[in-house]
């Protein structure tokens, strides 16, 4: 796949998730939750997790308002964290953040469709839109009772 093709396919993935968000809604029996907010663009996301006795995320939902990138990112996150144990979910947060803000090289093991988030590396002002939900994930996992920001 050429660079242009992958950009097109990444864009299609993001638009699809933003228009048809997966795991959108509320959990009645969430064990972990956190909100994230980017006051500068007004994006807000609320993430809820259900973690079972083995430490595995058995369910996840998100709600929020924001741009296509922030919604798509939250949708993909909610889809991918279900089934992971909390340690692996923490690793995934670090891997996605690293892929978007640091090395740019996705760590081995990052699910294929999450690679679409790399599209925002071309738009430095938009990286925080993509990382917002992931910061909320970290806050939820670490039980930090504040609104997460990307700063």
């Amino acid at each position, binding site marked *: 796949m050429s660079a242009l093709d992958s950009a097109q396919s990444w864009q299609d993935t993001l638009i699809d998730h933003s228009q048809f968000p997966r795991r959108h809604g509320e959990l009645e029996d969430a064990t972990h939750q956190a909100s994230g907010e980017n006051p500068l663009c*007004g994006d807000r996301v609320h993430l809820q997790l259900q973690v079972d006795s083995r430490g595995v995320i058995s369910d996840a939902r998100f709600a929020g308002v924001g741009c296509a990138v922030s919604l798509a990112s939250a949708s993909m996150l909610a889809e991918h964290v279900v089934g992971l144990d909390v340690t692996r979910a923490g690793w995934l947060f670090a891997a996605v953040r690293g892929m978007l803000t640091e090395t740019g090289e996705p760590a081995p093991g990052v699910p294929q469709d999450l690679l679409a988030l790399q599209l925002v590396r071309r738009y430095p002002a938009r990286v925080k839109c993509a990382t917002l939900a992931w910061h909320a994930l970290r806050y939820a996992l670490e039980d930090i009772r504040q609104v997460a920001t990307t700063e």
Partner: protein
Amino acid sequence: MADPHRASSGTGLDVDAVRADFPVLERQVHGHPLVYLDTAASAQRPRQVIEAMDDYYRRYNANIHRGVHTLSQEATEAFEQARRRVAEFINAPAAGEVVFTRGTTESINLVAQSFARPRLAPGDEVLITHMEHHSNIVPWQILCEQTGAELQVAPINDRGELEVDTMVAMMTEQVRMIGIVHVSNALGTVNPVAKVCHEARQRGIPVLVDGAQATPHMPVDVQALGCDFYCFSGHKMYGPTGIGALWAPLETLVAMPPYQGGGEMISVVSFEGTTYNEPPAKFEAGTPHIAGGIGLGAAVDYLESLGMDNVAASEAQLLDYATESLSAIEGLRIVGTARAKAGVISFTMDGIHPNDIGTIIDHYGVAIRTGHHCAMPAIRLFGLPATARVSLGIYNTRQEIDRLVEALISAARLFA
């Protein structure tokens, strides 16, 4: 157009000739000629401004008001000539009433701290409007925290117009200071500043006018407005960043204590005490942005060579065209529909977040602002976290508006 704020004796601009003065307009962005529709955030600069600053750095760079040598004298003369030109531009009675600052924000902070702070006590009020830029909100909030005064906010209607009668009714004996924006950067509204100043004057309340978006777009006459302070920025009016001005009558400036201490603002310093310089030097501590002042003077010269009446007439025509063109796009809603408006159009589109609009149309070479435009309360009043904003400058054309519309339609299609 039966609108007193649009009434203008100007006939418009030779936009092709204007465009030739702006080197950046030769740029391609993502393979398209740049369409720059973000002038309200920061205007582009004509070569006349760039060359004036370049000339200072190349030929007579030196500190001002200090040296006896030739370069210093030339630099001093150029800087003070710029001050005279800026004073004339806003019809200030004297050049010495123009204080150079870093911009509108610093001008407002200067007035809040130097003029207003000693006059405020607990129970007093500062009155502003709901459409202020953060730079005309936060300095007053800081001041209120320092003094125990309260911030009062005059409402706006759903067109984004100031409710003037309500604001006048809010001018009680407790109000010690008023801050009002001349032209809203987020909504484009042109406020009836002369009326507000007149009402305030009858009650003895000083008024500061934030003119950052007015000086680039219309003739400004501080005496006709009847305000006590007028603040504006160089970079919004085709001049450099990092320079702006505060105008106030000389007697006001004389009575105000210094804002910052340092060189330039003194006449005699000893360890026992310091005698301050006369205004405007009293408020210009430290070596100023000399090249910036000279560049701002060149921007004034440039705008006056076009004629501010012509600038206003040309932008009013383009605003009408852009408003009509954008309104024809399905699902597009214009936010801020004041009857008196300058060249700013805030809008939203169904199904696309403003930030996505901005990113997508950048791929078509079209530059607009998205977000809250540093006027969060005004945008939130409309129930929105953000808008997309088109702002017009002297170099914009109908063809560029057409390209904007095409790009917006493409963006809408992407999310359809």
